[in-house]
């Protein structure tokens, strides 16, 4: 079979496979709508419907089961997407190889298109940076709801990474904006509150927050572009490896082996980048900018809580700190009491056997502190032992 016929047939087979895959998934899960509509839809559509059905299907399962099932489903989507992408790339470069022309340029053109698709969202964001009104609107849009979704965003991040690594541009956005979802659901109500909206202090806090938010967005954008570029490099490397194998007349024995190559090359490419000084600084910028924004966000939240007669995070932390210090002091006292009890006991034992009694601990006045065993004396002793030597 010639490669043109081969790839055409393969493309059709892939589409048919995707239909079959999602059809089977939906059949497994009762209550999911008929798969008919997505027979003619885009490749990922069936996966989305299967995912929706799957949530209901695993509602009673352990959390880890739900998570694993979700990842498995996502992996299937990525696997199909990767195969489809590889096939498209091969269709682009194969004629060049066959004609003995420079296939590298064809591959570059293909991946350049991918690059543009992958990074189109960041470019839109970049444009928005030039319009301060638009930026303020975006910033205000982030403050919606007082839910705390930070940890959930982070929990899902590795999955988004997986999707992003398979060429899903929107997933890349999701991944790199691990904090972004949090903003979308945070604090928007504050701005709608008249009592706060007119507060000078609040406005000041919001403006500071706006600066921090901009810094975070910039850092996030740069990070996102780097990840996107890295993924493109990884894909180019996979294609180069496949071409090299084809030139030697070697084949990849099956889909599983192709997937292994995919995982190996992508991980290798990313880990090389992750090790670089540029990446470490870039990642540091994102983490530090996100953290700085988080601090500003807390200040605004504290102002809101104060105005609402609720204890702020700062006040709670201060309360916890005092409890912590008291708890520590109590533990130290307990240990001191135990030590003294031990000495008293040793002294009593010594007297009983006619030996010389051990020296008892004394307070600052030089009196033995046998009375330490009463709770009130315990406190006195602590005070005495904490008086600086020059004041004793």
């Amino acid at each position, binding site marked *: 079979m010639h490669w043109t016929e081969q790839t055409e047939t393969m493309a059709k087979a892939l589409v048919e496979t995707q239909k079959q895959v999602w059809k089977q998934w939906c059949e497994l899960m009762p209550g999911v709508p008929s798969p008919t509509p997505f027979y003619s839809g885009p490749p990922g559509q069936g996966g989305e419907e299967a995912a929706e059905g799957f949530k209901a299907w695993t509602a009673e399962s352990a959390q880890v089961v739900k998570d694993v099932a979700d990842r498995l489903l996502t992996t299937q989507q990525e696997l199909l997407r990767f195969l489809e992408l590889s096939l498209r790339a091969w269709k682009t470069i*194969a004629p060049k190889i066959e004609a003995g022309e420079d296939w590298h340029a064809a591959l570059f053109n293909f991946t350049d298109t991918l690059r543009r698709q992958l990074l189109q969202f960041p470019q839109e964001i970049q444009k928005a940076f030039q319009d301060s009104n638009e930026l303020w609107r975006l910033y205000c849009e982030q403050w919606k709801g007082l839910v705390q979704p930070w940890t959930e965003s982070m929990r899902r991040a590795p999955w988004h990474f997986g999707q992003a690594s398979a060429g899903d541009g929107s997933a890349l956005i999701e991944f790199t904006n691990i904090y972004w979802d949090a903003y979308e659901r945070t604090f928007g109500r504050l701005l709608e509150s008249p009592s706060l909206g007119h507060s000078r202090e609040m406005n000041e806090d919001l403006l500071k927050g706006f600066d921090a938010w901009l810094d975070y967005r910039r850092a996030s954008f740069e990070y996102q572009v780097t990840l996107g570029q890295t993924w493109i490099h990884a894909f180019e490397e996979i294609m180069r490896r496949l071409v090299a194998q084809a030139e030697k007349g070697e084949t990849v024995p099956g889909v599983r082996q192709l997937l292994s190559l995919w995982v190996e090359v992508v991980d290798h490419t990313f880990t090389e980048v992750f090790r670089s000084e540029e990446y470490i600084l870039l*990642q*540091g910028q994102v983490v530090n900018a996100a953290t700085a924004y988080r601090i500003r966000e807390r200040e605004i939240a504290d102002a809101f809580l104060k105005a609402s007669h609720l204890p702020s995070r700062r006040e709670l932390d201060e309360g916890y700190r005092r409890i912590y210090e008291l708890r520590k002091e109590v533990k130290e006292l307990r240990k001191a009491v135990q030590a003294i009890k031990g000495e008293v006991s040793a002294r009593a034992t010594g007297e009983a056997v006619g030996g010389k009694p051990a020296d008892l601990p004394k307070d600052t006045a030089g009196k033995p502190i046998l009375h330490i065993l009463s709770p009130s004396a315990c406190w006195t002793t602590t005070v005495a032992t904490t008086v600086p030597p020059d004041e004793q």
Partner: protein
Amino acid sequence: MRFPLPLNPHETARELIDLNQKVLKGMENLGRIREQDIQGGVSPKEEVYREDNLVLYRFTPMVDRPFPIPILIVYALVNRPYMVDLQEDRSLVRNLLKLGMDVYLIDWGYPSRADRWLTLDDYINGYVDNCVDVVRERHGGGPINILSICQGGTLSLCYTALHPTKVKNLITMVTPVDFHVKEGFANLWAGCDAGTQGMNIDDLVDAFGNIPGEFMNLGFLMMKPFQLGVGKYIDMIDILDNDEKLRNFLRMEEWIFDSPDQAGEAYRQFMKDFYQGNKLIKGEVKIGGKPVDLGKIRGPALNVYAEEDHLVPPPSSIALQRYIGSTDYTLRSFPVGHIGMYVSGKVQRDLPPTIAQWLKERG
């Protein structure tokens, strides 16, 4: 030229459909599994001490007269300790019990907001010291053996340096000592070179209070992003129809994502002094105001590392030899990764006897 797959398209499609059917069949198995089917921590144990979130357990001995010097396991703060007793055939604890050891374990629990101010001093001179005292008291008051793992190893090195008379023998497993070894992503990302430009720890703690476990976990997963995010689930397809293997996989998943938050102040000191400052090997770490000098660890020490460890690179662990004061120092390694130290069949076969034998020789 052909695409380098044996691209009979129909066969490829069939392979994919077969894979999918395998997944679907596995999903049915998956749907039947409940929380209680996959819980780690299988060996019988009793609670012997409790303090704040911490619980000290003693595992029920499996011989009539256990080895007289007990072992206290000090695990890392960043993961849950049931990894050492994950399931019957993957349990370091169980294997040590079978060899006649008497085993205690510190479970740190999950720090809450109220624990945000806990320091390394509280962990080392407080919790660990109290647990050591409890175990000593139960066994005649003499020094005990400590088996410490990963970050728990670093904490135990500090503890032993500060309280050398309470520790008879010290075992460190996959323990970071030199935090500026460049092979480690954790070292690089935590700012061993870049400092606050890599990660501003003060701001991080001020912003979050306690550091979310998910944040820590994201860092670990990013060290092998595609393998851990996608490749693992492709490999999983092969075991979906095997009930036992599927449960093992899920236990591991449960453990991987069960990441406690980190008490803010303890995290601050650990990251700044150990990762960024590399002060442990310089003798500049201070715990509770006292300097930690690894040279003061003069008792026997067994240091075990994983040759393929991507979290704690071998040179980071091996470095201990250069700084420890012990003249009875033993180094052992296993050809596995960080997690393989707990779950690899070969390690489970060889590591417990290595530990038991080493301890018995130093009775």
